[in-house]
């Protein structure tokens, strides 16, 4: 025991001392410790706290020499690649965006879009891998996002708090609506999803013996998995169900009918359109009838019509539609 006390423990204390010194040095090198994010104001200071705290922006971005992350663009002035800090850069990026889309983007619109739809206009040389900051696990509120926008605009840009908070442009406002809905949802609610389903899907799809027959029967759809359901809503043409291919019929007068082929008999073909209208064309009058695998009868702008909350709700509702064997 004497040996332990007199030789081993001093040795241990030296080792632990080195360990503590390494921890201390690294903490100093990386800008000190952090504290829990308190409620923040919509201000550059509040945004800075979110950026380096709860928002975890520092995981992928740096601001000039502050931080060491390089997965996303540096938000400060940094080397030849980033000659302007974010606020000033946003003006330039907004102009490019306006030219591309033919709409009038302001710097604030550009930054808000980057947060609301990160994949919309990715900086060259970077991947579209930014996390959705208003969904779990980051889950920033709209107020916190506005604060981050203020912080980024304050980095060399014209900080206009009205444009960020009190009087946003129409475009920014539409992004804010999307963020608010998602933040409020915090995940899907199957009960609300049933209502959304009733309003948007029943007309075309059958579920447990009830509903229309234009689209595939969704009874037991959860067996196909979340990815399939999600893709079917957002990009319906990508995951067409066999027997529900989209046909394009052109008659001899050049009129085009797009929809499902619901009847094909000796002399006639029925095409059922997305709105439920049925067009009957005599085969003799048909110029061409082809499957178009790039289109779906299901509206492809459904995701625009649904809010994020509706989308999450309906996903959770459909995921509850278990195949019979599992029920």
């Amino acid at each position: 025991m004497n040996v332990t006390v007199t030789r081993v423990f001093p040795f241990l204390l030296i080792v632990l001392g080195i360990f503590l010194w390494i921890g201390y040095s690294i903490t100093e090198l990386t800008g000190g410790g952090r504290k829990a994010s308190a409620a923040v104001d919509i201000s550059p200071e509040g945004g800075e706290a979110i950026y380096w705290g709860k928002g975890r922006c520092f995981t992928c971005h740096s601001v000039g020499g502050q931080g060491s992350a390089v997965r996303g663009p540096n938000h400060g002035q940094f080397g030849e690649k980033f000659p302007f800090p974010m606020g000033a850069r946003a003006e330039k990026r907004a102009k490019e965006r306006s030219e591309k889309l033919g709409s009038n983007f302001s710097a604030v619109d550009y930054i808000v879009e980057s947060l609301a739809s990160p994949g919309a206009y990715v900086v060259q040389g970077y991947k579209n891998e930014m996390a959705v900051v208003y969904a779990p696990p980051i889950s920033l509120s709209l107020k916190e996002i506005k604060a981050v926008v203020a912080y980024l605009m304050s980095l060399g840009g014209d900080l206009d708090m009205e444009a960020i908070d009190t009087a946003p442009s129409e475009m920014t406002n539409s992004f804010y609506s999307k963020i608010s809905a998602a933040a409020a949802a915090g995940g899907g609610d199957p009960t609300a999803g049933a209502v959304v389903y009733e309003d948007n899907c029943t007309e075309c799809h059958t579920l447990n013996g009830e509903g229309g027959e234009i689209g595939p029967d969704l009874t037991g759809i959860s067996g196909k998995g979340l990815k399939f359901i999600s893709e079917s809503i957002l990009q319906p043409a990508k995951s067409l169900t066999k027997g529900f291919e989209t046909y394009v019929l052109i008659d001899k007068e050049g009129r085009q009918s797009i929809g499902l082929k619901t009847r094909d008999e000796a002399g006639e073909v029925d095409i059922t359109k997305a709105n439920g209208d049925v067009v009957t064309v005599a085969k003799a009058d048909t110029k061409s009838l082809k499957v178009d695998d790039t289109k779906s009868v299901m509206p492809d702008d459904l995701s625009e019509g649904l809010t994020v909350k509706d989308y999450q709700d309906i996903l959770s509702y459909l995921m509850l539609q278990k195949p019979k064997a599992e029920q």
Partner: protein
Amino acid sequence: MARHRRIGNGKPIKVVRPVLWLALAGICLALTASPAFALEENVYRQFLGIDSRRLVWFLAQMHLFFGAFVLGVPLFAVIIEVVGWNNKDEKFDKLAYEFTSLLSVAYATTAALGGLLAFALFTLYPTFMGYMAGIFKDIMFLYALLFFGETFALYLYYYGWHWLKSDRPFAANLQWAFKALALVIAAAGIAFAAGLIGPEMRIDTRWFILLLYIAPLAVGFWILRDLKSSHIFIGILLNVFGTAIMQLANSWAGFMMSPVGVDGEGAFVGTVWQAFENVLATPIAIHRMLGNLAFGGLVAGSYAAVKFIGAKTPEEKAHYDWMGYISNFVAIAALIPLPFAGYYLGREVYSTSAVMGNNMMGGDFSWTFIIQAMLVGSLFIISNYYLWSGMTRIPGAERYYKFIKYILLALIISFAIWLTPHNLPLSSQEVGEMGGSQYHPMLKFLGLMPAKNAVVNLIILATFFSFLLYRRGNVLEAVSIRDQGKGAKITILVVGLAAVALVGQYAMTMLNMDPGELDLPADRAEYIRMIGYLLVFECVAGLAAIALALMDRGKLGQAIYLAVTAFNVTIFLGVWGFVVMEKASPVLRNVAVAQFLQLISCLIVVSVIDIFLFKRAKSLGPLKWGRMSVRSQYALLLLTFVITMNMGLMGFIRSGLRGDWHIFGVMRDTSEWAHTPSNFVMTQQVGGAVLLFMIGCAFMFWLGGIAAGKKGD
């Protein structure tokens, strides 16, 4: 108060009931807590104004240190006992008993700390724990029952050691009954492996259960024939109970990181099995299992080192030198696959959440991982140093001293590459000097995953090479395998072919894989196929090594196989990793799997050939146990300190990845402590826990010494 009973040969049994009750009370508290829902407002409390998170963190860390020791030691104690039993060598039996003697106090301390941790969690984090208890109540009941099993098995194993020593065989009928039971369990195991039982189970969970519960039980029943084998069977049961307890507790930790069956409102709508078998539960369990084994080995090794330093006689020195060697051997055996288990866990973390994955490698924890790299690199270098020091006790080993400098060079270069970060915080001026890039033009490559994967394989190969030199230290010439009978040939052939098949099946997977499975276009198939061709080449090298060994050219076979493997895993795949990263980055994970499979197969085949090459070879003299420098014992102690710090650090990373969420994405931490602590705070917490744990160990060793003194051992 401890109660004493007498059983068998009259040795006292200490039933540590108060401690057990404390732990069980914690569990009961958990079971009676009313379930809460994730969106309810969280309630937080404090005890004496102490930061609740740091308190719980500290208690959890202490519980895990002692728990890891208690779970790790029986794993190798039973194996050592089996070696002694099989070879009829009393020395090994005594060593296994000495290792087990360290467990008694540690077990009681683990239980006491577990109870304290449960109380702290339920009183300081009532909402969170209510939610967890609501989901895991069935598993918590099972946990409590297993706790009884573990307790009885441990005390029976330790205190029944001398009582269950007889080798007088049981009645033949009874022996046949045990063998029949073993066959039934084995058949059930085969059905389970084939997926006939639990078809929906994750493959890692299935193999974990198969290898750590079903197979040991089948073996245990198969060998049951007398009291001594019954004692070994109890040891197996002890490990089965211990592993199951760990796996259940891991499912809670895993659920907190990768919750399943929870709806958008945070209400649990899944099944208990879903919650138990969450994505990260088994990867964590695999990593922890190996970690416990290495940790248990090294803590036992530190016991031997302390005893060696204080030894008064050559006999004592010889005994504790040998004990330290065995402990270090166990630790290295577990350390070798540990980086791969860590890689698998990391991959599953990324699969669970890219945010959590990015946070791990590029966010709060990127610097913590650099500290971790320092610690793990140190573990390998110090282990090698201990082996090299051990060569001084081997007559004839001086022939191999010349290789040590090359191994050291390989280790240092690998260590340096492993430590190289991809980028560092730089000033604008420094960026300008590097041509406007934040990355160094050359060193940036060393910071990327392909370089890290290559050097970790080289470190393992270098360590294995040290071990081969150690093994061959006192043998003169290899012996003929042809003359060793069928047993040697069959063993080499079966083990060799199994290892080659392991690589071969992955080669086929690579050759037939559709790039679409990795979301890659068809023209990227060549990047996958190349790995397949390389693995086929590796299989050819493996087969050549087996054939050469059977033709008495085993050393040549080993050399060819090691050289091919070293080239494939470090040079070829090291470079190919960069190509893949640029052109088809999802294939990078397949590169890592290919590296692991080649390395592990090579190590297995080369070891088996080596065993028979030098079996009964002419010796240059017996090992001079005890002829070790005191410095080497400090190396052994340092290994224990480093692995203990590393365990604490890894726990910090794993738990911290959730960010400010109690349950990732479901229940947010809304307390005043909801932020990631700095690395300095981490070193304070972990350092404090390590210090206290080591004081606890010193106390355990002291008690062990008193017990040994009383028995006159």
